[in-house]
């Protein structure tokens, strides 16, 4: 289901650290490395930087993740082209029985050991549908958590990435969720699916036979995959956007992150390939035909330009958006793929620049807002730089979904207004 893209040419393997960047000690330039070999010494609280393919180490450079974050990266010139075919070691492993063994031995005291294992395998996630996974697990050391939710909802039917991952890697997803529940002592562990994903639900239920992992079917409307909304829908708990779900007593991760964690748990497999989805929305209809959607397994560090070229989707003109087409996150084709960055990408036709009309106070932005804030009033506050007024109208509750901008008949840049005020404040 996930077409493997061979690694070739120059890769920029991102080092998943946040600023201020620590001093880095990579392998010397010119060193030949094998796939999954460490490229630099481990950094505390950061996932390991592993070679996605065999090749020659280059210089330290900068790369931009698909989340827009700039990060240092190690250049790697790939010399071999391993694809995502499970090695003989993994195919011979019985996932469910391995899971049973893990579950039997798992104790909450072991959570630190598993966090180290994930880091060493390069497993991480920090995107809109899956907040900082390692950060959540670190917080589990200090905070009680009673719910594990695996978010297998997609932004729209055009790109069923999470659903496909949950279906193709059901055993791994269930393994990750069940293990996290066992390690955190959570009383509830579930995979959240669209109500129409009956086939995936069956796969998950089959894989979860001897675990406590359940399936929660949800009637999915955008932007349900957002953790704040998801947590509220499933558990009625409130989570301020930007905060980790552990603050509300839950761990939330999406199916892609769960699959990577599950493969690490069951097979010891390092996360050197990213499962991503690209939907070409440049056609006339709202839903692209199947042949314009790509589900790919790409090596970490591959530029999106190379990904598009290899999947035959680079016919211009286009604009590339990450996460969701409504969130206005335009990214360059220079961005590199990563295990933890945004994994859903959309090609849209370049939109003509539209000058906004005056606000007519139709109220559609407030009515459409899933978190019940007043985007029009926030934009007004942003224009005057009035942070207090923006807080009164709920800027801190904005989940950045872009519904307000989508529905506004005046074409006002409501989402941009919220973001600009947040940038000024930060």
């Amino acid at each position: 289901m996930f077409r493997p893209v061979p690694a070739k040419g120059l890769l920029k393997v991102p080092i998943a650290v946040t600023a201020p960047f620590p001093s880095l000690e990579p392998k010397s330039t010119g060193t030949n490395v094998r796939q999954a070999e460490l490229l630099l010494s481990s950094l505390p609280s950061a996932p390991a930087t592993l070679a996605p393919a065999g090749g020659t180490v280059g210089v330290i450079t900068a790369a931009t993740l698909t989340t827009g974050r700039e990060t240092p990266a190690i250049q790697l010139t790939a010399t071999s082209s391993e694809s995502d075919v499970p090695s003989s070691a993994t195919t011979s492993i019985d996932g469910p029985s391995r899971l049973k063994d893990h579950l039997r031995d798992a104790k909450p005291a072991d959570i630190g050991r598993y966090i180290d294992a994930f880091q060493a395998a390069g497993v991480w996630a920090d995107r809109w549908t899956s907040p900082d996974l390692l950060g959540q697990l670190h917080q589990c050391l200090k905070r009680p958590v009673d719910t594990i939710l695996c978010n297998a909802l997609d932004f729209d039917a055009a790109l069923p990435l999470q659903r496909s991952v949950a279906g193709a890697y059901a055993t791994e997803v269930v393994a990750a969720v069940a293990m996290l529940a066992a390690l955190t002592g959570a009383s509830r562990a579930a995979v959240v699916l669209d109500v129409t994903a009956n086939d995936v639900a069956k796969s998950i239920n089959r894989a979860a036979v001897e675990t406590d992992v359940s399936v929660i079917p949800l009637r999915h409307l955008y932007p349900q995959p957002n953790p704040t909304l998801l947590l509220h829908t499933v558990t009625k708990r409130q989570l301020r956007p930007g905060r980790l779900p552990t603050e509300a007593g839950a761990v939330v991760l999406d199916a892609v992150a769960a699959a990577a964690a599950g493969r690490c748990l069951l097979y010891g497999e390092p996360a050197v390939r990213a499962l991503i989805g690209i939907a070409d929305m440049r056609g006339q209809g709202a839903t692209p035909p199947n042949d314009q959607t790509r589900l790919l397994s790409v090596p970490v560090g591959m530029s999106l330009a190379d990904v598009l070229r290899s999947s035959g989707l680079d016919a211009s003109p286009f604009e590339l958006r990450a996460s969701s087409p409504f969130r206005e996150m335009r990214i360059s084709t220079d961005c590199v793929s990563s295990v933890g960055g945004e994994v859903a990408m959309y090609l849209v036709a370049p939109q003509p620049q539209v000058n906004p009309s005056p606000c007519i106070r139709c109220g559609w932005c407030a009515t459409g807002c899933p978190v019940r804030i007043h985007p029009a009033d926030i934009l007004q506050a942003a224009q005057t730089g009035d942070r207090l007024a923006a807080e009164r109208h709920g800027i801190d509750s904005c989940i950045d979904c872009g519904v307000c901008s989508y529905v506004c008949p005046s074409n006002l840049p409501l989402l941009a207004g919220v973001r600009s005020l947040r940038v000024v404040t930060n």
Partner: protein
Amino acid sequence: MTTPRPAAPPEDDATRRGVAVESSAPVLAPAVGSHRVHGGWTVDRYVAQHFQGAVFPLAAGLLLYGWRALIVVAVVMTTALGATAIWRRIGRRGRDLSPPHTAWLALLLSLMLPAHFGSLSGVTSPYGVFWLLPTAGLALVIVLWLLRGAAGSAVHPVVATFLLLAAACQPLFISHTILHRDSLFIGDVLDAPADDGAHTATPWWSARDQPSGVDAIYVASPASESLLNYTLGRREMSDRGTMPLTSFLRDRLPPLEDLIMAGNPGPIGTSSAIFVIVGGLFLMYRGSIDYRIPLLIVIAAFTALVVLPVPVAITDVGPRWSWLALREPSVGWAVGITFVNYQLTASPLLFMAFFLATSPAVRPMSGGWRMVYAVVLGVLSAALQLYVSTSWGPYVALLIVGTLTPLAERFTQAKPLA
């Protein structure tokens, strides 16, 4: 809110052409007005949807008042649009004026005006009634400009403009003529006899005879004026003895059918209750307005009109007031409800409920407070039209309640989810 300035064009020519850029830095905070996936709705479409609902009262007005009503609508809208085109270029506030939105508001304002304003007699004089039309259009734009395009306050610009004009020229706003059914649309509504002859109980649209040689019917005291006089306890000079409510309804008011269908003179768009209701229901069907607002306004007004004290009889020494008049033996349920129906249809309450109170400029954002707003508005409208002015009471009520909306919203705004 000020309208954002358009974004500066991108520096890179390739980006401007929409070609994928190979080496530029990623842009994640889009510039103002930049490329966005959008639902496709525009202000023009939004306003057009409302225009569809107004077609019904507008059609009724043109039929009942003829080409003079058309003049009123055309002049007000043209003046308003012309003023908008000029004013948009002036200052920061000018950018807040939207031509389609102004056109919609101008249409509403023209529907609230009487058709006899479309009179060209006296046009050479600055005091001619015709000049109220461009004044109305211009005043609307000025009010809109002051209110920042209705985005910065909870005052309905049409109501504010109307009340300003009405306060200055009150007697001129009373309409006394309406076209006979045989001269609909093409007739001259000012071509009417000097008096209305004997009062008839026959509805206008069924069997009333057309006065010979004229197009219109003259009504000395329209229903709204008669009702107000009665509820204020006023008597006409010719009245002697006691005037009970029953007699008043039977002898002094036109048939209720005239107010529901047509036949009682009034403003262009509010003379036919049925057309106003159909237009409002159409807007509800299209989802353009929140059904709770007009529904609760009407229910609250109905209840208030039943309960509030009204004279059950006007005697030589003055009116005899009674709360819940229908419990009086001399009144009863039938007469009481009929009186309430007259009040609802003789005033512009229905027009206000469907077309004005549902405006985003005045109605609250949160659902809970909308219901409170509608109930308060209905009760206040009923009170004002009983004791202040049947013709303008609902508008004044909307002005008062609308200005309280921002204050109430501060305390009743829906709590964010997170």
